[in-house]
């Protein structure tokens, strides 16, 4: 009997559960490894593939991500520019909801950035 066949018999007859778990762990490792590869590629993608404004972002985070002064971002929002965690709404979702107000804010930020880039050139 060849070594591979003996190993197969050993795994399937003596330790079928452990062998199945090992196969699952290897499959999961390959799946996660593939996802890690994709995520790494996205991480080092060029800046033009930048993330759009999302509901989890805060006004200050938007200001940083879009290279705008926080004062400009806060001027477009009904939010307290001095608010800290626990002191009031922090995320865009809290301030604007996830509906049309957020969409309008996205357009205003794009316009503010375009204006700022226009004036700096």
């Amino acid at each position, binding site marked *: 009997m060849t070594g591979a066949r003996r*190993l197969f018999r*050993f*795994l399937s007859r*003596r*330790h079928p559960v*452990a*062998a199945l*778990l*090992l196969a699952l*762990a*290897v499959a*999961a*490792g390959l*799946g*996660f*490894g593939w*996802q*890690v590869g994709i*995520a*790494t590629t*996205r*991480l080092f993608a060029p800046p033009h593939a*930048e*993330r759009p404004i*999302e*509901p*989890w972002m*805060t006004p*200050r*985070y938007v*200001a*940083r*991500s879009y290279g705008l002064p*926080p004062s400009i971002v806060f001027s477009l929002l009904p939010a307290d520019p001095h608010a*800290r*965690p*626990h002191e009031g709404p*922090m*995320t865009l*979702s*809290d301030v604007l909801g996830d509906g049309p107000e957020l969409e309008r804010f996205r357009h205003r930020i794009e316009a503010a950035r375009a204006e700022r880039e226009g004036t700096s050139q």
Partner: protein
Amino acid sequence: MTDTLLALVPVYGNWLVMASVALSCLALPIPSSMLVMAAGGFAAAGDLVYWQLLLAALAGFVAGDQIAYHLARAGGAPLIARLGRRPGSAAVLGGAQDLLERRGLLAVFLSRTVLSPLGPYVGYLSGALGLDRSRFSAAAAAGAVTWCLAYSWLGYAFAERIAEIATLIANSVGLILAMAAACGLTWWLRRGWRAQHQAA
């Protein structure tokens, strides 16, 4: 899922960071590395203060490690003592204790840095097998400082990319756990395979 977690960070701030890190040290499935990294990003934006975030993460880590160690020491020691009286398991336990004495500090440090998903289990084992408390605490604290600095700095330095890094971290944790399970099972099966050949 990632977006929901990211939204929690600016709302609950450093308390969320501290609690999540402490609970994850007890093996509760909480993505603390992702939360600390995201908090670093929000600190870069000015929503959180970086040094406060770092201290909160560190306090949570040290507290969680100590709780895990003492829980295992109190609850695990009698179990280990009972197992040690069995002829079959006494040798295995003795070997594990020897290994922990010789390589334990390195294992504690590595399990709090590059192999951080394994950290809680090494903490429980260290307590149950009676690794010296001060040596465990020193190695765990060194690992905790490294871990907290690394993840918070990652978020701080690459603040615009925290969503992408969060996805990367989630998959990396899955990869490490899957690899650890595969290595452990391979080692166990190989031992059985050798024992069978020696018996034959």
